[in-house]
């Protein structure tokens, strides 16, 4: 007859083995299917959802750098979408061009009511442009680094530069130049954060790269 002590040892060992399997399955390196998946043949035949990565000129998570680069920093309420066009400056080649189909990076413009100025002195309603938006080749809008396209009624902290040629205020950075705000308490906190950043803003220019 198997003793109780032996049963206990067997039970403990069994529990340990089960837990080790669970732990291994939880922390073991997973295969990176996205990277090692069979790449497509070069037939230019896939038109999946756009994937866009941006290389930033500075640390956009640092409010001091965002404020330093922007002409205007303000809190505003999005009123409505007023435009949608390709990103300026990118060549929009015709169908017969050796450059192939048109560039698809869209921009979307919104009318925005200015609520609080943190840097600059905007008044009333201004037009703000965000990189990203609707395109004709996919149902979902193109989003830059998953920055959601703005919607009417949202309260947003904007960091913008004025584009004289286009006549609108351009969001300087996806996500970090159009920060969504929920409620009065968060609005006060965000304003306080960016006011403080303004006091120590970092001047940024292309000369950094020289």
């Amino acid at each position, binding site marked *: 007859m198997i003793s109780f002590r032996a*049963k206990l040892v067997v039970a403990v060992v069994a529990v340990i083995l089960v837990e080790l399997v669970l732990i291994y399955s939880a922390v073991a390196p997973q295969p990176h299917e996205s*990277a090692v998946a069979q790449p497509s043949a070069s037939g230019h035949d*896939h038109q999946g959802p756009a994937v866009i990565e941006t*290389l930033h*000129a500075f640390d*956009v998570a640092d409010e001091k750098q965002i404020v330093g680069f922007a002409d205007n920093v303000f809190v505003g309420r999005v009123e409505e979408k007023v435009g949608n066009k390709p990103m300026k400056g990118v060549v929009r080649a015709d169908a017969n061009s050796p450059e192939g189909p048109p560039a698809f*990076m869209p921009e979307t413009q919104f009318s925005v009511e200015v609520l609080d100025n943190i840097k600059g002195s905007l008044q009333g309603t201004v037009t703000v442009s965000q990189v990203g938006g609707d395109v004709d080749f996919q149902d979902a809008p193109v989003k830059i680094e998953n920055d959601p396209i703005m919607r009417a009624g949202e309260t947003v902290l904007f960091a913008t530069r004025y584009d004289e040629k286009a006549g609108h205020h351009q969001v300087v950075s996806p996500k970090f130049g159009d920060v969504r705000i929920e409620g009065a308490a968060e609005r006060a906190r965000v304003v306080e954060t960016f006011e403080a950043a303004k006091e120590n803003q970092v001047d940024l220019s292309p000369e950094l*790269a*020289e």
Partner: protein
Amino acid sequence: MDHFAARSDEASRVSSAPWPGTVLLLGLSMLAAMLAIVVVLADAKPASAHFNGSPPSRASNGNIIVRCFSNNYCGTYDWSRGPWNNQPGTPSVVADTSTNPAASLWIAEDYYDSTVETVAYWSAGYDPDRIYNNNYWMKGAASTYKHVVSTHELGHSLGFAHASYMGEGDTYNYCRKAVMYPNTYSATQCDQVGYVMPHDQEDWVIAWGTT
């Protein structure tokens, strides 16, 4: 058997009797300990590869073929094929100076936008992959800076995403670990600029390479 001996014997039997909850309690306590370990390990953020989920199109021989339409940076991108091609395994990044319609990456025409902090965009999902260079940041930059940008963007076309999220307080991460770090300001602060660095190499080996 005297009375005390009998009681002692009884106590012994009671204490060693197979209490039904003993094994269960022991198992549960071990489970809790193991869960704690899992939580700690999960929070430890072990080094991991970063892929963008968009494997590049490749020619029949496995190579990634690059066509360059840029007015300013074809030489820069040509230079940046070197650091990646020096990695073990496949594929090779090959420049195509002809009008090969099977090119898997286009260095698109440059653009100029002084209102955004974006140095370059890389996009996939509309074949071929494309790279857009912002002349506002790139045009007057030092060649080292341009090489950092071009090596980074070619890295995207090899399937690599950014090496780290921003705002982790590790400004000099770029210098030490990865050309796939997502901002170039760090590169200007480095005392020594590298191109394909240890973290990139780890990702390369996982995705493509053999050692």
